[in-house]
């Protein structure tokens, strides 16, 4: 007999492991196990994980390449920064509300942009999203009275710490996971596989494309807000094409359509500078060269990325271990037959 964990047990296991992870991480940071550079790298990785996971919705699950993620980051960052700097609220509550404002404003823009953008496909889609992101950047530069112009916004209150960043990471990942497991997520996947076939099955592909793009923009905006509060200073020049490519590299390296792939690749690439700093001081000069090389090499030799579209399930692994330990050999042979 194969043991299957029932769903409530799975939920309990997952929730417990998440709490364990957060508490352990917080504890390790509190006792000062890591230096300042390491802590900031860990937080930085968390931000990139949110970015990569939310870009993965469009690139991996929907099968389109947007090049305008930086624009949504900028909207989220500026929206949250305006709210925080206005000082209406303070403390934890302000952080949460600011993040929600960032997500909603960025999601709104995503929705508005996706309506015209999805009239186009493939390369045209990539270009039009890039165009929108450049427009957003120009607007930020050209209204200096509101946005601080090219200097950007300074003295954004700092709310980010390990606990809140990684709570957001977990919430975002869970939400995306749940969406993708739902009816709507299946519809998005079917759109990627074959538009015409899924259209003939009654999937409103246009609506699902817009939906996927909007939630991707929503989560990217949240990441932008966390990025803004973590940096303290934001300027339009940060949100260029290269920022979008940064995130795209992570998704492509991890494997388009694999959440664990995006998470691993984002964490790896975001912490790479820290590892390599001791080896070579000026890694930052080579960073984009290495990135572009990774992109080309992966596309030439393994277009599916490191993880393909494999997704990780903790409960499934537990199940396998339990089966390995408790199911007798005879039954296993039987099962194999």
């Amino acid at each position, binding site marked *: 007999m194969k043991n299957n964990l029932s769903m409530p047990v799975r939920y309990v296991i997952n929730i417990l492991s998440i709490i364990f992870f957060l508490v352990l991480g917080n504890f390790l940071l509190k006792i000062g196990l890591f230096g300042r550079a390491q802590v900031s790298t860990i937080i930085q990785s968390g931000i990139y994980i949110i970015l990569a996971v939310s870009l993965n919705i469009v690139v991996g699950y929907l*099968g389109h*390449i947007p*090049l305008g993620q930086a624009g949504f980051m900028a909207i989220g960052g500026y929206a949250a920064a305006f709210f925080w700097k206005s000082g209406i609220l303070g403390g934890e509550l302000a952080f949460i509300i600011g993040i929600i404002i960032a997500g909603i404003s960025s999601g709104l823009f995503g929705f508005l942009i996706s309506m*015209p953008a999805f*009239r*186009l496909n*493939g*390369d*045209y889609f*990539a*270009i*039009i999203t*890039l*165009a*929108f992101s*450049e*427009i957003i950047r*120009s*607007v930020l*530069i*050209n209204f200096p009275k509101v946005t601080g112009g090219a200097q950007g916004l300074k003295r954004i209150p700092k709310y980010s710490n390990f606990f809140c960043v990684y709570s957001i990471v977990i919430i975002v990942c869970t939400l995306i996971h749940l969406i993708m497991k739902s009816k709507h997520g299946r519809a998005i996947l079917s759109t990627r596989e074959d538009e*015409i076939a899924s259209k003939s099955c009654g999937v409103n592909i246009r609506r699902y494309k817009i939906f996927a793009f909007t939630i991707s923009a929503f989560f990217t905006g949240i990441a932008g807000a966390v990025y803004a509060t973590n940096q303290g200073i934001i300027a339009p020049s940060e949100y260029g*094409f*290269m920022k979008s*490519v940064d995130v*795209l590299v992570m998704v*492509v390296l991890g494997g*388009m359509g694999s959440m664990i792939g995006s998470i691993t690749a984002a964490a790896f690439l975001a912490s790479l500078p820290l590892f390599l700093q001791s080896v070579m001081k000026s890694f930052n*000069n*080579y960073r*984009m*060269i290495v*990135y*572009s*090389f*990774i*992109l*080309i090499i992966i*596309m*030439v030799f393994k*277009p599916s990325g490191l993880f393909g579209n494999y997704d990780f399930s903790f409960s499934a692994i537990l199940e396998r271990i339990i089966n390995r330990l408790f199911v007798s050999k005879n039954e296993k042979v039987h099962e194999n037959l």
Partner: protein
Amino acid sequence: MHRFNWLLIFSQFINGLQLGSIYALISLGYSMVYGIIMLLNFAHGDIIMVGGYIALISILNRFGPFISVFFAISGCAVISVLIERLAYRPLRKASKTSLLITAIGVSIFLQNLAQLIFSANGRPFPASSILKNNKMRFGKINVNSVTIITILISIISMLLLVILVHKTKLGKAMRAVSEDLESGQLMGINIDKVISFTFILGSSLAGIASIMFCCQYPLVNPTMGYMIGMKAFIAAVLGGIGSIPGAVVGGFTIGFVEIFVSAIGFSAWIDVAVFAVLIIVLLIRPFGILGRRLTEKV
């Protein structure tokens, strides 16, 4: 009251023509490559930067203007053929997504390589040692000689291109391949040769454009290709990608839009205007002004 200034309008028209012809030359490269292998060659803009740097170095090493220009153009051609061989050819059967990502990778690679070699700061381009800029007078109008030469050379290169594509065997092969790659192959066309030739042609035009651009705006920096390339690509899309007259029409349109926007005093909004034009055109005519509609067959 402001008097309607015809002279001003005429000289702005000439400026638009100049900028437009540079964009047209570059967008031809995008358009031809896209027409043949359906690849958005993101690296094409950076070829312009490569051309600029090659010209700069050869001038600094005291090669004459003609040799420098020759070096720049042939350097562009060689590098783009190399890119095609190493990065695009292995992916010819891959999905369009992979191709696009590879092209983005190549573009970033070139930009950052240049940044590593020449540092991120721009370098002044010794424009006067390639083209002396003389003021020319036609009646009451002052025109720079660089402007006239740019327009003339662009028109000559475009005419040569049209002759090449329409009157030679290789051009015929190119047109056949862009019509249908597989049927072309069945008719005995050497696809690899045609594709390499297309890249050579497109990047030589980009090389010419890069010299023209650097003579007008004498500064070379590693990311200069990004915006020019982007706008030229927009021009190609605007005119209908894959169509040679379309690329020219699109290039001039973008040139005029830019000059018009800066002439009415919104020079900070040039990029926004160009992107807005792209978005509007794509929404009204998704296949560009002169493009053909590609219908998807099941």
